[in-house]
């Protein structure tokens, strides 16, 4: 899970999404196909080529007020069509920490 903050060349190796954090509260968000953000991964626009990824990222990054730190993240698409996080880091961002919090939610 080498930090994608170190991404320089944009080259995707499978279906991907653009994700970021919401500026005012830090919540994890995903770029939709409707030029906005959603907290639900199922709402995320899927890109499948590096060009598409680059374009979506550029479009997302233009929303500097609403979102912070946008980058391209891999996803896994199940046979059912359900979209899941594509690596452990994205899984943790979506689901939360893998440990019990000291204070139960």
């Amino acid at each position: 899970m080498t930090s994608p903050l170190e991404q320089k060349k944009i080259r995707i190796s499978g279906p991907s999404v653009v994700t970021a954090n919401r500026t005012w509260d830090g919540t994890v968000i995903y770029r939709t196909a409707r030029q906005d953000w959603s907290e639900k991964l199922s709402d995320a626009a899927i890109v499948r080529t590096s060009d598409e990824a680059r374009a979506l990222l550029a479009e997302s990054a233009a929303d500097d007020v609403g979102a912070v730190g946008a980058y391209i993240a891999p996803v896994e698409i199940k046979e059912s069509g359900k979209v899941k996080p594509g690596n452990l880091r994205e899984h943790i961002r979506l689901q939360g920490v893998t440990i019990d919090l000291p204070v139960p939610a």
Partner: protein
Amino acid sequence: MYAYDELDRTLINERVEEFRDQVKRRLSGELTEDEFKMLRLQNGVYLQLHAYMFRVAIPYGTLSSKQLRRLAHVARRYDRGYGHFTTRQNIQYNWIKLAELPDALADLAEVGIHAMQTSGNNTRNVTSDQWAGVAPGEIEDPRIWSELIRQYTTLHPEFSFLPRKFKFAITASAHDRAAIKVHDIGLRLHRNAEGETGFEVLVGGGLGRTPFIGKTIKPFVHGRDLLSYIEAILRVYNQYGRRDNIYKARIKILVHELGIEKFSREVEDEWQQMRDSDTALTLDDAMIEDIRSRFSYPAYEKLPHMPEELKKASADPLFERWRKNSVFTHKVQGYAIVTLSLKPIGGPPGDATADQMDTLADLADKYSFGEIRVGHEQNLALPHVARRDLPALWAALDKIGLATPNVNLVSDIIACPGLDYCSLANARSIPIAQELTRRFANHDTADLIGRLHINISGCINACGHHHVGHIGILGVEKNGEEFYQITIGGRADENAELGVLIGPAVPYGEVADVVEDIVEAYLALRARPDELFVDTVKRLGVEPFRERVYATR
């Protein structure tokens, strides 16, 4: 405890108001993230995986009970009910909202707590010995000098945009509990032959991608010259530190590339010119005395070393086990320094809940003159406990889970937050720590093993200080899987040394097994029961451990 006066409080409040304005301008779009990021970092606000993280300063690891209660309040009101104590004596909150931060800061400012320069390319918390002021044999309280440096470096107009972060640590004891040798500037307070107070100044220590042990740049700087000398070092660094590559921007790289002799000459040259033209930074006795006078010390009673309460309680084996593990000698007879382990078996290391903090604040009022300390090993301490109160204190601590008798033992693990929280991480560290505490949950076994520091970092930035762990564990990534490199033989104290890699990285599921193998090897190889793990490694080298671990892997 240092008492903030009107001037200190005014500065903190002015900083809060400035940040409130900066947040407002960020949320309105007047400031871009590129312009805002460094400003929020200067106030300790990071972006992590799920949320912002807020790092609050605990200068030289000293807190009043009032302040601790306010930290608990922030955890409850603005976060998820807990905080994490760090390897630099600070506290972190993991779920803070940017929009609410100015209010959180205002709440903290009311009790003299701030988050100034806990991140960013500036001078950070001046850390010190968590036993400062109460350790036997201490030359004098290093926190007075920490406070002088803190004030000098806070919002310094010349040094707020350094090439990279800059960390100070200061010790005044023969045994270095502040890890000064792995800091950008390390200061060892001592007295010269004339009995004057001064500092051995070390420079260029640090961990991370290119770890270095600090080198002595000047064996004795008189106390009155401390700030001007530091200014000379910072000015040389500000001008010549690399700005083209963030991995080569720390002062340790500059010292390494110039060599310590050339670097020393540059600093000396700058310092002499400074002193010739201007004496504004020279500290006179009155100024030092002013800061010293605002540190208050308890009115200790005259107490016996072995009070009745303690004699009676020694019949309880559980109390005795805790006392032998967590209670340390105080410079005043009849008193003790009590370390509170924040490393419960199966729990994440270094966390405390708001409830624990509140109860601890009450206990500090009752048993420690209202004072708490934070150590870089991510444990807390009560620095002024009367020995007659130890049994009652223990019972109360045990009730809230702060009496695990594993201080300095194998399950007293130092770990960074890792991939569960941090956007820089390659791998998780907390679950590794948790599993290790479970493997070594038996206190008899842990006692048998003796003093053993395990440090875990989730990435090469080394916030878990793995390079100087007796056993160091570094998370790396291989083909999307979590792997871990293991080093042994590191030390953070006055004999600071970097650990040595024992072999290829091992997968997540095997780390605990590997550590068990290493410990087994140690138990089989040690010359005597009281030969520490780290000394066995020194004596025998890495090979016997490597053999044991990799024989079947």
